[in-house]
């Protein structure tokens, strides 16, 4: 019960901060990924290529949105807490680092739910023929957020300066989408990159979101890969995030 209260408080502190940042959030979570959908369609010829490509672009934009909000945005907030001295307020409280991280995860999940719903609605308005299987989609979205938040938290805990950390989270947030077969297939990449990038979490996420948007349920392999990556990144983040210095 105490732990739940701690997590809720950390969540509410972040949520209260969102009041004045709703605009930038919409920009990062909805407007920018929507623009990427249009851009990919214009460059890739979505109209001509048909429904499957449009589904790929919508799935790509959902993953892009999750990446921007989970790695770039959440990572930025964690860096801000660390380098502006706010983290000291938590570190000197009888609060475990895991409550702090889980509070952030709750906030990221709320953001992810909001942005995914918004992008699905926009996709529908744009005529994307999505017949989303909600349970697999929700599972994949949650696992993707956990996995990417773990990466953001690792960067935030390891960065030597705010500038270094924010550059890293920005580069990771966008790089993990554009270097993975998210908007385009691995065949469009150099062979070595295609071979490597198919193991990136964003590649598993995009594949699973595509399957779920098409009404499929066979996302178990990708879900397992995402769950394993999430476990590894979050465990590393918790290990690196120490209240006490040596």
């Amino acid at each position: 019960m105490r732990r739940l209260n701690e997590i809720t408080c950390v969540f509410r502190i972040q949520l209260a901060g969102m009041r004045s940042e709703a605009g930038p959030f919409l920009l990062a979570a909805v407007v920018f990924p929507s623009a990427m959908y249009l851009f990919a369609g214009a460059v890739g010829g979505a109209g001509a290529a048909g429904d499957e490509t449009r589904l790929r672009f919508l799935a790509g934009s959902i993953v892009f949105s999750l990446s921007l909000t989970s790695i770039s945005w959440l990572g930025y907030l964690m860096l801000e807490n660390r380098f502006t001295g706010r983290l000291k307020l938590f570190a000197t409280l009888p609060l475990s680092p895991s409550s702090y991280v889980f509070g952030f995860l709750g906030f990221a999940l709320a953001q992810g739910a909001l942005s995914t719903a918004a992008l699905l609605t926009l996709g529908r308005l744009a005529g994307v023929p999505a017949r989303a299987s909600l349970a697999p989609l929700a599972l994949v979205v949650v696992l993707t957020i956990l996995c990417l938040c773990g990466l953001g938290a690792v960067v935030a805990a390891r960065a030597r300066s705010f500038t270094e950390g924010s550059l890293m989270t920005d580069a990771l947030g966008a790089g993990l989408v554009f270097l993975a077969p998210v908007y385009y297939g691995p065949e469009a990449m150099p062979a070595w990159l295609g071979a490597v990038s198919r193991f990136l979490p964003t590649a598993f996420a995009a594949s699973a979101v595509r399957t779920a948007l098409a009404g499929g349920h066979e996302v178990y392999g990708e879900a397992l890969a995402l769950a394993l990556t999430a476990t590894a990144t979050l465990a590393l983040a918790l290990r690196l995030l120490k209240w006490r210095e040596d």
Partner: protein
Amino acid sequence: MTRTATQAIEGRGRRGADAPALSARGLCKRYADGTEANRGIDLDVLAGEVVSVLGPNGAGKTTFLRQVTTELRPTEGRVEVFGVDAVAAPLRAKRLMGVTPQEAGVFERLTVREHLELFARLKGLAKADARAAAREVADELCLTGEWGRRVGSLSGGQRRRVLVGLALLGRPPLLVLDEPTTGLDPASRRAVWDVIGRAAERGAAVILSTHYIEEAERLSDRVAVILAGRLVAFGTPEELLGRLERSYRVSYRDPLDPEGEPRSLYFKSFAEARRHVEAERLSEYTVARASLEDVYFTLTGLRAEEGAREEAACGV
């Protein structure tokens, strides 16, 4: 804060308890680069007393306090908070303290009410208690008028008071305040002094670091002076004054250099001081009993004007 701890300190009044609220024994901190920031510090703080930690910049005051607050792991030595080993059980120890870190930031987008209430909840207070505690702390620190304002819109001094307020939430039996009044205007500083005094009256133990000797003199039951990582003096202001062999100060201007800096000389007795004034035919001078400031400058080997420059350099 636990109920047991709260009940344990209620009604004791200042310096009412025998068992130390905070006990540090042989505390050493060596950083990876070999710097020895603390070298075997032994210090107790009793319930109901205020202990001020003085020392020049880089002396090891903050390192010492950060080991007390469990932010920093000691290289050697023990820290106990009401008998709880703060090194082995940091969460339990932290439930007994309220902390104002030296360089902590605030959440600018929260209102004062939200900031205080949410942190009171994080300290384990129930919703209604958190609300009451937040209101009480805001009243004590003259923040009621800013209750609904975003913390980001407050002045630097008001933000510092919010940070002090976070430490006071839930009336913890030990307060650890690292330079709580740095950057505050005189009125705000006085408000914080009053709050610290009332906390001690209620039985809380308070340890604070400060650059203001006046603050230490006014607030403290005992004063600790840390120099180059060592505790070089610890006692009541009277005890520390008693350590001065020459406890009368003559401050004067050199008749041959009337535009120069004022000078000070110390003497064992008032009569000896008078004799010096007459022998030197000083016309512009004061003779006074030595103060805590004189003790500090004697112990640290700084001259008053160097100390003033140091304070100015760190924005004090």
